């Protein structure tokens, strides 16, 4: 491992731990207000939703198109999820659905 790569690894560790660790230190210094905690309760659902939105699109020559296979698998996963309320089952069905769509295509 060259010195350059060593420095890259070290710096990227600082850059990511700054985000991961600082809330732990900040929260011990300040008291979280009740309304702030209520706002935080909406973070999981909004972060997860925001993270998956781009997954359903693909970029070809600068333009975005809907990835049909992903969209269909996503809708199937959504239906299974709503029906069974089981995360693991939803994951399996989504994966199998995408694999089958690719196999059939």
């Amino acid at each position, binding site marked *: 491992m060259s010195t350059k790569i060593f420095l890259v690894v070290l*710096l990227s560790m600082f850059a990511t731990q700054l*985000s991961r660790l600082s809330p732990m230190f900040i929260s011990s210094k300040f008291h979280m207000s009740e309304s702030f905690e209520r706002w935080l309760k909406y973070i999981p659902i909004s*972060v997860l939703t*925001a*993270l998956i*939105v781009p997954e359903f699109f693909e970029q070809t020559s600068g333009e975005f198109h809907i990835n049909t296979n992903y969209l269909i698998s996503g809708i199937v996963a959504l239906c299974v*999820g709503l029906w069974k309320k089981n995360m693991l089952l939803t994951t399996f069905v*989504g994966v199998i659905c*995408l694999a089958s769509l690719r196999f059939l295509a």
Partner: protein
Amino acid sequence: MCGKSLLSQARTALTQKQITPLTLAMPIMMGYAPIAMTFGLLTYQQHLGVWTALALSTVLYAGAAQFAILGLLALSNISLGQVFITVFLINLRHFILSLAYIPNTKQWSFFEKLRFFPILTDENFAVLLTNSEIKKDPIQAYRVSILTYSTWAVFTLIGYGFASLIPDPKILGLDFALSAMFIGIIILFIDRLEQIITFIAAILFMLFFYFVLDCGRFSVILAAILASFVGWGVECRRKSS
């Protein structure tokens, strides 16, 4: 651990009887394995050493940022400042994830927090919050994280070592595992009107920031913060009326 008990744990997970750290970690491990292998493979193809692959996967441990680093290392003249800013911006969302997790760790010791938060990922965060007991248990929650962390490291090495033998993960549809898991988790979180509104708001904000304003990875943080304000605002209005 023998194969039989793993299998029976899988079965109980699918029928939702008893939830253990392994059953929580399993969908993440399924999704991480092909991504980590791809990372190992790409590191190998870029003629970087195996230690570089392992160091990035264990010290940095952040999917998208690791791929971005590989992209930067491929360029001939990169500045270290550029590395820092790229990783910082991609991983800034961890700040709000960790912050949102803090209320569950009120009973934890300093050491328990110090070993948990450095390896918190989007996926661990999401999965842990689905289980009201495990998320508050410092040992069980750490087990979920360490299982996915090891999977990431081990499969980085497998990807690096067996670069030429690995089948395309797309054949198995595993590239969709994490998205499908997130869909499954989002559904578990939705039980009130405010959350449905937050969900729709997050989609709209994301489409706006990502596709209209072209904010890239930064869109996630902007959309998440604003959508949470929408949910929180609706909750406040409904309480006061």
